[in-house]
């Protein structure tokens, strides 16, 4: 099972070091010897680096905005009672369950109707829309086991509601916020379906890769893929260490 999960990753890493000719046909990969050429020439393919940077920018902004909005949503869901609350909750799950292709198509229709020019903004709106529910759900899980008297204790000791939130509530739900934010980042960075609908003429990394598949994938793609993977590993490891330290 673990092999099943790990094989594509290993293949990706291997091919980032493969001494193949650039632009081999996709299907006929073969190991031709070790090289770090592609790491040195990471910037050699026109269009790839800008697409990759755009995707990173998009993923970061999506992560931050989704983390904030998702946390607020979770607070609204757990802390307050209001009419239509059940509806909001259902919508959140529906949002996750709905096929992305349908969401993408309807969003496109929506943007066209409102006459919003497609590009980074529409990508960003779309990505926040399909990631925010994940944050809301992970944060909600932290909040529902929350002992409210801890916040009362903070107020009792002179903390106004804002200080209480920053000093007590937020640190305690932060692991949930973090988990949701990383999920949002991961979902955003490799999203293809929704992005393909709302990108207009803007090219993200997945869109670029898809565009060149028929011609042949340059090894630099594997380089970027490997970099993302290693960065992900480092983040995961550092959060682990961080949490160990805190406990």
């Amino acid at each position, binding site marked *: 099972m673990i092999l099943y999960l790990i094989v594509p990753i290993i293949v990706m890493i291997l091919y980032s070091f493969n001494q193949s000719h650039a632009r081999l046909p996709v299907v006929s990969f073969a190991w031709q010897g070790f090289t770090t050429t592609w790491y040195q020439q990471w910037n050699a393919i026109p269009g790839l680096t800008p697409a990759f940077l755009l995707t990173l920018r998009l993923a970061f902004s999506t992560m931050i905005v989704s983390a904030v909005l998702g946390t607020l949503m979770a607070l609204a869901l757990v802390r307050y009672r209001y009419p239509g609350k059940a509806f909001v909750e259902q919508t959140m799950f529906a949002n996750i369950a709905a096929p992305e292709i349908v969401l993408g198509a309807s969003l496109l229709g929506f943007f066209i109707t409102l006459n919003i020019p497609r590009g980074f903004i529409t990508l960003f709106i779309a990505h926040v829309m399909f990631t925010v529910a994940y944050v809301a759900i992970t944060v909600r899980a932290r909040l529902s086991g929350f002992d409210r008297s*801890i916040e*009362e*204790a903070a107020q*009792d*000791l002179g903390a*106004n509601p804002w200080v209480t939130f920053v000093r007590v509530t937020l*640190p305690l739900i932060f692991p949930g916020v973090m988990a949701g934010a990383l999920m949002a980042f991961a979902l955003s960075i490799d999203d293809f379906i929704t992005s393909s609908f709302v990108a207009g003429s803007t090219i993200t990394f997945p869109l670029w890769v898809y565009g060149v598949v028929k011609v042949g994938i340059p090894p630099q793609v594997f380089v970027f893929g490997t970099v993302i993977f290693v960065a992900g590993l480092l983040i995961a490891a550092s959060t682990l260490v961080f949490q160990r330290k805190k*406990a």
Partner: protein
Amino acid sequence: MGASGEIDVRLDRVSKRFADTTAVDDLTLEVERGEFFSLLGPSGCGKTTTLRMIGGFEEPTEGTIELGGRDVTDLPPYRRDVNTVFQSYALFPHLTVFENVAFGLRRKKVSKAEVDRRVKESLVLVDLPGYERRKPSQLSGGQQQRVAVARALVNQPKLLLLDEPLGALDLKLRKQMQLELKRIQQEVGITFLYVTHDQEEAMTMSNRLAVMRHGKIEQIGAPEEVYDSPATEFVAGFLGASNLLEGEVKEVAGGIARVLVDGGAVLRVPEARMHGRGVSRVRVGVRPEKIRLVADEGEASSARNSVTGTLRVATYIGVSHQFTVDGPGGRTLTVYQQNMGTDPIPAPGSGVRLEWEPEHTFAVRPSEPLAEWEEEQ
């Protein structure tokens, strides 16, 4: 310890209604500066709600709350010079003991050196020096409790609220912490308003206490007053075993009321213990340890109250004897008698006489019987 006569807390006709329950019902209460004052009552009687209104966590539906002469009814908790020890301790799990205790001082922008000094001091006060760097999860229940006390006291509030702070501890630790809290209160001289459903705890710790039921105060007084002269049947029963006899007040004269008990005897009750009742039907009572049980022979001493009955059960408990007696009017009476080893013990079934001093007699207002959910005291 010594209460100063200055009023620190004043609740004036305070009520709190939730959707379908009245948790606190037209409650008026004054606590003096430096007092150890307890709210005592069965669970669900409104103690926590009262405390939460003083802390600022609930808004009274009606009435006003004053702290140190200032109306704070509408102030949020963080603007009140009051600190709370929560029943669940409510320590900040992500902060060290030091930061937990320092939390209030940091909000007041106290200088770093001063924070250091005061946190250390209050950890010494609660007997936890050297625990600064631990997390709450690394402490035992008793230690967490001490941190909660230190965290509140370090702010030198005018008033400390404690909601069943020892409820989660086992009996032995609880006894120890009762003494600790009492010592701390005497040392710092801060007013303590203490909530408990444990009558023994309230009596050993308090200067004064209020017995609550159904959101109302049944009686306020020093522990001895409330125990020896309960005003209501409920208070009599809640603070310990008591023997109640139904009767009719015949006359009140010279500071003494004469009550004709159903089934014969005339009992004398000090007027001060009639709680303002005149000629009427009353219940009179006496605590089991105030009674002397003797064989029913010879003349009853005319200086004492006495009733006759039949001894049902004699239980030997070592330090004392416990007797159950069928008394006048079909009432069952209980007697605790210290085991002096001198008095002969009458045989069950024999006639006995119960005697006690008139000043140990009290009259109570009848109460509805305890509901089932109130019974766990």
